[in-house]
């Protein structure tokens, strides 16, 4: 199960999607909005996506996990739009017969999400706003004042 949502992520539904009598472990990664980043006090975030490609890449990541860990059941839900401090931006749940695979698969999934999924967060902080990850040179470019 891979999904993009525009409102709060329903964790229970995500867990229900992977829970199975064959699985003895479910590992979840809950990515939450932090109140600080690189010395800046964060007010809120906005997540934007190239949606069709984000869905495709999330599906590819899911397929990648299936090949490496055939017994793992994986769910990934990423939220878009405005998120407040403490909100969950992404939930990854990996269920497996044993905990080792569950931990590994969940870890692998979130690491790949952070590298390849065309989703961008715009950080609104005290003093301005910035698209995280974008460097135009030695210093980070800021918009606003």
């Amino acid at each position: 199960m891979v999904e993009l949502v525009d409102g709060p992520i329903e964790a229970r539904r995500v867990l229900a999607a992977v829970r199975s009598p064959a699985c003895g472990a479910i590992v979840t990664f809950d990515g939450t909005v932090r109140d600080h980043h690189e010395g800046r006090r964060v007010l809120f975030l906005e997540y934007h996506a190239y949606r069709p490609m984000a869905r495709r890449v999330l599906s590819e990541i899911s397929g990648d996990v299936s090949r490496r860990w055939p017994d793992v059941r994986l769910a990934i839900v990423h939220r878009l739009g405005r998120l407040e401090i403490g909100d969950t931006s992404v939930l990854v749940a990996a269920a497996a017969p044993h905990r080792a695979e569950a931990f590994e698969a969940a870890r692998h999934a979130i690491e790949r999400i952070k590298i390849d999924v065309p989703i961008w967060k715009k950080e609104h902080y005290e003093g301005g706003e910035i698209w995280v990850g974008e460097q135009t040179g030695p210093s980070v470019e800021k918009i606003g004042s």
Partner: protein
Amino acid sequence: MTVRVRLFAGLAEAAKADEIEIDWEGGSAAELLERVARGRPELARRLAHCRVAVDCAFVGPGDPVEPRGEIALIPPVSGG
């Protein structure tokens, strides 16, 4: 021929547009980025950090980009 190139995030903001048009007959992804940069030199530094996607799949800098399908420029991502 004229092709549309989709932009996102900070690149779209800097370009003040969600897409731009360029003259493109085909070439590598790296050449495509160069072509965009030539038309919009103020975007050049950002473009240097972008990947190219065709029909929702990343292509490498040396891979061919035909003048068809959906071409998008992908700035450094920050999801997750």
